[in-house]
C-alpha cells in the first residue's frame, strides 16, 4: 500500500514535495500541489511542433511553485541543536518529537502528528492529510488538505499563540487543463470587517512559457488596498527562469541543472518598499553513493552559508550540519541536527 509512505519518514527526494513545512514536521507526500515538471525532454524543433499540434498545453502547476526549484537549491539556515524523532504508528498515522536547543532564542519542544487518509488520487498522494504540531506552551500549528474533486483541492490552516488564534486561512486550488487558479482567504473577520484575499492565476502559453498574476486585497476598518504582481516562467531543457514583477518589487530566479549531481540557482530580489536589493548564488551537490547532500550559498550581503546532510545508513539516522557566516556584520551561526526515523 502506498500509505506506508505516511508511516515511514519521507525518504529523499520526496516525490511530491510542496509547501513549507512547519518546524519539526515531516511533510508526507501529497502535501500540496503536484510539483512543476521542470525538465522538458529535448526534442527536435519539427517533432516539437508536431507534438504541440497533437498534445494540449500542460498544466503549469501552482503559482507558489514558480520559484520553488531555485529556492530548494539554497541551504536553510539553522541555529543550535535540533533533534527530531519520527515514529510511524500505523499506515495512516505518524507522530514526531522535535527538540530545539538554541543559544540565541528560546529552546523548545514540539509534538507533532500526521494523519493521511485512504482516498488515493495518484500513486504518491493520499487525502485527506491532517498535520499538526504543538509546543510546550500550547501554541498550535495545524493544516488540513483535502482533494474535493479531481480538479479542486482545498486547504485550511490555523496557527495559535497559546490560546489565541493568530492566523487562520483557507484556500482552494482549481487545476485546469492548461491553467491553475487559486483563491486564498486570510484571517477573515466578519465582525470587524477585515481580512485578506489573495488570488493567483497561471496560464500555459506554450509548453515552455507560463504567464500569470497575483492580486492581493487587504481590508481593515478604515483602510483597504490592493497589490498586483505579474509572473512569467520559462522552462528549458535543463533550466527554469522565472520573473515576478509587482509594485512591491521584483524577484528573478534562475535554476540550472548541470547534471544529476550538481544544481545551481541564482536569485535576485529587489524591494521598492525597503529600498533594498540582493543577489544570491547557490548550489546543491548530491553524492548518492555517499548518501550525502551539500548545499552552499553566497549573497551580495556578504553572507556565506553551507549545509551538509548525510544519512548514516543502515541506521535510520540523518545528520545535518549547518554554518552561516556574515562577513559584513562579523557574525557566525552554526547548527547541528539529528533526525531519527
Amino acid at each position, binding site marked *: 500500500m502506498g500509505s506506508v509512505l505516511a508511516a515511514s519518514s519521507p525518504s529523499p527526494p520526496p516525490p511530491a514535495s510542496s509547501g513549507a513545512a512547519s518546524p519539526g514536521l515531516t511533510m508526507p507526500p501529497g502535501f500540496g500541489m503536484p510539483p512543476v515538471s521542470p525538465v522538458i525532454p529535448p526534442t527536435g524543433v519539427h517533432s516539437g511542433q508536431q507534438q504541440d499540434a497533437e498534445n494540449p498545453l500542460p498544466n503549469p502547476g501552482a503559482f507558489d511553485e514558480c520559484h520553488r526549484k531555485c529556492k530548494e537549491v539554497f541551504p536553510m539556515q539553522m541555529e543550535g541543536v535540533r533533534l527530531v524523532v519520527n515514529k510511524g504508528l500505523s499506515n495512516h498515522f505518524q507522530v514526531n518529537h522535535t527538540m530545539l536547543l538554541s543559544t540565541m532564542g528560546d529552546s523548545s519542544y514540539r509534538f507533532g502528528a500526521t494523519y493521511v487518509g485512504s482516498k488515493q488520487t495518484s500513486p504518491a498522494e493520499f487525502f485527506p492529510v491532517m498535520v499538526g504540531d504543538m509546543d510546550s506552551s500550547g501554541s498550535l500549528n495545524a493544516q488540513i488538505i483535502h482533494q474535493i474533486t479531481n480538479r479542486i483541492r482545498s486547504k485550511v490552516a490555523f496557527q495559535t499563540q497559546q490560546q489565541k488564534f493568530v492566523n487562520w486561512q483557507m484556500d482552494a486550488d482549481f487545476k485546469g487543463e492548461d491553467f491553475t487558479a487559486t483563491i486564498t482567504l486570510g484571517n477573515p473577520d466578519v465582525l470587524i470587517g477585515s481580512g485578506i484575499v489573495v488570488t493567483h492565476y497561471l496560464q500555459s502559453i506554450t509548453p515552455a512559457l507560463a504567464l500569470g498574476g497575483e492580486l492581493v486585497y487587504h481590508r481593515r476598518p478604515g483602510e483597504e488596498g490592493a497589490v498586483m504582481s505579474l509572473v512569467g516562467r520559462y522552462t528549458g531543457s535543463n533550466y527554469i527562469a522565472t520573473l515576478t514583477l509587482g509594485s512591491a518589487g521584483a524577484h528573478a530566479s*534562475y535554476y540550472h541543472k*548541470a547534471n544529476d*549531481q550538481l544544481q*545551481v540557482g*541564482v536569485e535576485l530580489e529587489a524591494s521598492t518598499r525597503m529600498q*533594498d*536589493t540582493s543577489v544570491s548564488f547557490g548550489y546543491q551537490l548530491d553524492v548518492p553513493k555517499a548518501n550525502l547532500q551539500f548545499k552552499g550559498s553566497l549573497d551580495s550581503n556578504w553572507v556565506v552559508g553551507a549545509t551538509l546532510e548525510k544519512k548514516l545508513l543502515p541506521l535510520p539516522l540523518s545528520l545535518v550540519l549547518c554554518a552561516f557566516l556574515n562577513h559584513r556584520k562579523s557574525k557566525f551561526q552554526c547548527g547541528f541536527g539529528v533526525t531519527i526515523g
Partner: protein
Amino acid sequence: MSIHAHSLSVYVAVNAGSNGKKGSSSGVMNWISSACRFATDRNDFRRNLLVNLGLFAAGVWVARNLSDFDLSPQPVT
C-alpha cells in the same frame, strides 16, 4: 587706439574660445565625478539595483557555462 582696441578684441575672442573649451572640459569632468559618486554610493537604490543586476547576469552566465563538469568521472579504458 584702434590697434589696442583690435588687440583687445582679439584677446577677448581668444579668451572666450578658451573659456568655452574649459567649460566643456569642466562639464565632462563634472559628469565623470558624478558618475564616480553614483558608482560608489552604497546607499543609492538605483546604483545597488544596477550592480546586483550585473551580478545576477554574471551568476546566470557562470551557471550556464561553468557548471558542466563531471563530478564522478569514469576511468578511461
